[in-house]
């Protein structure tokens, strides 16, 4: 059978080209470097293709907090579960959120107990459900980084346009640059270079990044998700590190521009404003999430439903916190693969297929 890779991607999955870039990385590197790929999609691809096995020993990749499912706080998940239990509610969410455990349940158990929990592929599908079910309250769990923010904003704008009084969102979007600040300013920081998340930058551009790179003297390369994109991003970052140069290079220029998608940014700015947000495993990061602007507050599910006070009880074994900050590898966790596996996740990084622990488990990283 012919190469099953779609034509438009075949070049970016070409093993020969990938190996050429890897050889260049090997020629460039002279000392150990610790890089972080910020995005869970990148972690997933690195594991899927086994790219970490091909890098020279000097280069260590640590996996950043870029999996929205993993960093969504327990409070938000418990709020989601509480709302989803209401008899008048149709609760809609991206699929992998269903398995994330809250304090006492997950969305799967809510569904098994009779709650109307539905997987949607796009936020606008939730708006459609609201229009079709006027007697129900339809809530969308608006998680994700800047990547999903335009679509989440669009859903709110569309609901307003349609005059839907039965649609709201549980705002849970998180932002990459504040997380980079948090990681780089931490006393435990080990990160010397960043692979910036290509799809976040496709929306937001990377104009915010040079000041971060400068402040923390940490070079970055905007990086895509195919094998060739990833090794190119690593090469660009290693080159800067070896040259002692601090800059932000765009290694994903077929998708990302410096300014980003202006229309999408305007839409986000219309609906959302930065608010402080609690990240699972990291803590509260100032102005690191999107809340609704005053105009769109009526679409805030936390206002519409009395979500109440929620207490957090955490497992003592799981090291999700250190994993999400890149301090530890998933395989260094005593629970990894034994007590904690994708079926009975102890921590969110094991839940989502974008989570670092799940990627390690799925792609067989027993130890490192």
């Amino acid at each position, binding site marked *: *059978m012919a190469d099953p890779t779609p034509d438009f991607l075949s070049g970016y999955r070409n093993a020969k080209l990938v190996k050429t870039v890897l050889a260049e990385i090997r020629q460039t590197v002279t000392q150990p470097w610790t890089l972080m790929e910020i995005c869970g999609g990148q972690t997933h691809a690195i*594991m899927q293709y*086994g790219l970490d096995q091909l890098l020279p020993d000097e280069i260590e990749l640590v996996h950043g907090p870029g999996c929205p499912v993993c960093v969504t706080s327990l409070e938000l998940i418990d709020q989601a579960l509480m709302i989803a239990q209401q008899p008048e509610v149709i609760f809609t969410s991206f699929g992998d959120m269903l398995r994330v455990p809250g304090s006492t349940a997950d969305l799967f158990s809510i569904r098994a107990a009779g709650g109307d929990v539905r997987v949607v592929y796009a936020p606008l599908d939730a708006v459609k459900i609201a229009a079709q079910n006027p007697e129900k309250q339809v809530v969308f769990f608006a998680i994700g980084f800047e990547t999903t923010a335009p679509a989440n904003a669009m859903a709110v704008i569309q609901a307003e346009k349609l005059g839907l009084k039965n649609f709201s969102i549980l705002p849970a979007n998180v932002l990459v*640059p504040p997380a980079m600040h948090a990681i780089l300013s931490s006393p435990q920081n080990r990160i010397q270079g960043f692979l910036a998340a290509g799809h976040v930058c496709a929306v937001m551009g990377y104009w915010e990044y040079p000041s971060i790179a400068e402040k923390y003297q940490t070079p970055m390369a905007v990086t895509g998700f195919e094998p060739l994109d990833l090794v190119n991003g690593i090469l660009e970052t290693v080159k800067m590190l070896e040259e002692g140069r601090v800059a932000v290079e765009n290694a994903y220029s077929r998708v990302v521009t410096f300014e980003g998608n202006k229309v999408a940014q305007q839409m986000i700015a219309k609906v959302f404003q930065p608010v402080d947000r609690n990240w699972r495993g990291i803590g509260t990061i100032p102005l690191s999430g999107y809340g609704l602007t005053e105009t769109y507050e009526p679409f805030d599910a936390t206002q519409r439903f009395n979500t109440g006070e929620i207490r957090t009880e*955490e497992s003592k074994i799981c090291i999700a916190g250190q994993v999400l900050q890149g301090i530890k590898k998933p395989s260094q966790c005593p629970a990894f693969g034994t007590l904690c596996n994708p079926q009975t996740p102890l921590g969110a990084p094991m839940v989502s297929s974008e989570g670092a622990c799940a990627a390690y488990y799925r792609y067989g990283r027993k130890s490192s």
Partner: protein
Amino acid sequence: MTGKTFEPITMQGPVCPVPHHHTDTVVIGHGSGGTMTQDLIRNIFQSRLGNAYLEQGNDAARIAIQGSAGELAVSTDSHVVFPLFFPGGDIGRLAICGTVNDVAMLGAKPAFLTAGFILEEGLPMETLTRVIESMAAACEEAGVQIVAGDTKVVEKGKADGIFINTAGFGLIPPGRDLGGQLAQPGDVVLISGTLGDHGIAVLQARGDLGFESGIQSDAAPLNKMIAALLEAIPRVHVLRDPTRGGLATTLKEIACQSQVSIHLEEESIPIRPEVRTACDMLGFDPLYLANEGKLIVVLPEENANQALEILRQNPYGAMATRIGSVSAADPEQVLLHTPYGTTRILDMLSGEILPRIC
């Protein structure tokens, strides 16, 4: 947004919620065909109903008949699919093919089926007729007859249109020994065609993916192709159909049953470009998607080319290809060798396949 100065943050210690094992109630993942299903079978069913036949752990049970040289292969399968009709098939065709194939995987000649129907009040008679006509056509194609049946009707909302259970019976000729426990080091692994077609076709037929393609389900009775294969090559060790849980889960089962490792060459695994693209968009792995008309063959290497020729003569095996081999090292592992020279471990599907967020 960048106006605010960021103070160094003291990071939290370990945070992680307590696990939810889903031992109190049945959740959707228990029907995924992966480890949750296996746990359910082991903990609830086998501990109470277990016997030597169930413990064989194959697609069908193998039962000796007094006074006969051959043995009986028995299998049963319930079919619940939404929507009832999808490109390339429908619930009726699935109900016949699934059971026929399970019986045929032991090398038996499927002959008789039973069919039980659970119908939801309000189901249009025209819909039911179409499903039954499709079952009739599939029976004729497979050369089997439905010899007993049952019908129950439940109140509206208590079922989803129509659920069908079928059981299948066939004779295993004397001396024929096939099963997941019989893979041998040195064997090769063949697949009869492209993977993931059924999974994507059904998902797409639900209409909420937001894109369209021409992907058709592969639902097909494989018994005639299998009969031709076994007639020419009686030394086949394992036949399996990679249904729920996909190729990866099925091979993992074989590796565990036979205490061997299975090595796959990623580049040789046939996947349609449109299935690959749909998987890329949704964050699925085609190796875990369901197939309803594909055959895994494990057999000695010297018979591999002849087997491929025979499979390719059948329309359901036109794309048959060699995808891997069996080894004694690393028992119970399924290892995928990528074109980049790296290796990754394929595990069983755990729970329900979920689309990824971005």
